[in-house]
């Protein structure tokens, strides 16, 4: 099961889906999923920065911290990433060896 409950999302290791490409745009980025062929507008530059940082951090909250996002904003980021998770732009990172 790739989708993750919102509550625990902050503690979850996430990654951009390997089939997703991000294209920088003035408003943030466009995310395109080659598998589902869905295009998603990422309308916040900080969300884009965190999305790019996911892979090198052990959890969403670690990525938020690394990107300098104030803790008071984390709930809104958890919500944004829950939605990205729902549209399969990000997913839980499989545990590897």
């Amino acid at each position: 099961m790739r989708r993750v409950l919102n509550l625990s999302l902050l503690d979850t290791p996430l990654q951009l889906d390997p089939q997703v490409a991000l294209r920088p745009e003035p408003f943030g980025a466009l995310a395109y999923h080659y598998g589902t062929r869905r295009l998603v507008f990422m309308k916040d530059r900080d969300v884009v920065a965190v999305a790019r940082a996911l892979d090198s951090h052990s959890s969403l909250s670690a990525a938020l911290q690394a990107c300098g996002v104030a803790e008071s904003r984390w709930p809104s980021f958890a919500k944004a990433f829950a939605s990205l998770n729902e549209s399969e732009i990000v997913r839980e990172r499989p545990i590897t060896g």
Partner: protein
Amino acid sequence: MSAQSLVEQLKGGLDAPICLTWELTYACNLQCVHCLSSSGRRDPRELTTVEAKRVLDELRELQVFYINIGGGEPMVRRDFFELVDYAINPPTGDGIGVKFSTNGTYIDTNAARRLAAMDYLDIQISLDGIDAVTNDAVRGTGSFDMARRAMDNLAAAKFGPFKISVVVTRHNVDQLDHFKCLADSYGAQLRVTRLRPSGRGADTWHDLHPTNLQQRQIYEWLVAKGDSVLTGDSFFHLNALGTPLPGLNMCGAGRVVCLIDPIGDVYACPFVIHEQFKAGSVRDRGGFGRVWKHSDLFLELRQPQSAGACASCGSYDACQGGCMAAKFFTGLPLDGPDPECVNGEADAALGAVHVELTPRSSLDHSRAARSPALSGR
């Protein structure tokens, strides 16, 4: 960021198009009476395989995620599979997804199997009537059977959910439910789009475009079907009738959309193949990227547009004044109402336009043997 401000951002243009249509050839075995590119004969100046691959390389660098390939009939090109494969599976880097529009003639059992084996490929088969009589009146004798055979072949090859693409006309409005059933029976997705008076469509638009009453019928049908039917956001002029239809509700020409024609010329959208809307060529120095980012035309289209004669109309926010191409080719001012304005604001102006004086594209690749009914205007 709210949906409204996203639309405002998109109106200012993107670093690269979201939705790029590339017509690979003007050659076509059919001669549809509403063809937006007046296709028929190949143009000797069409891009070579090498040039086309260079364009694909550039689009990849610009991170254009997918392209819509059309024509003409794109499968007529001998390098069709080579180009599609090069787009999807490039020697290096991410592929570009391909959606191509076809009349289906060349999707025999072999081609269907070959297409089914490719990833990141969507196919859109054009059908403008639920029966041969309705369809062939627009698309030509035998075209209904060919399209259905292509659908059967794709289904047999387990291609997956292809798309059935319908241009809504006065004569097929009542068939919308039937089209949906047909699509469902194949596990396909239905796409319905708006008829534009572009290309040969300029000659037939007055006879084919839905009546005002039918426009409400289309609107209500689309509201009821919601997201289960694709529209390419082409019916936003109907939003003046009530709750907005799903989609971005804006003209994307030169902002998020553009067209590369078979000879490499870049136009603001697929429906405006005319000098006035030509931004440049992929053969120019700087290629497509320079045209997209710096052409005078595209920069102008990304400026705030004037509501003009529509400024005092309460529906302007809903319909945005409609479609630029529809206005242009019916001889209406670009800053006035759409010819199919649901409030009837264009009716008087439309009646006053001399058909002989409406703008015509200098490009016409129609084959000589056109039916007499269509050659005169």
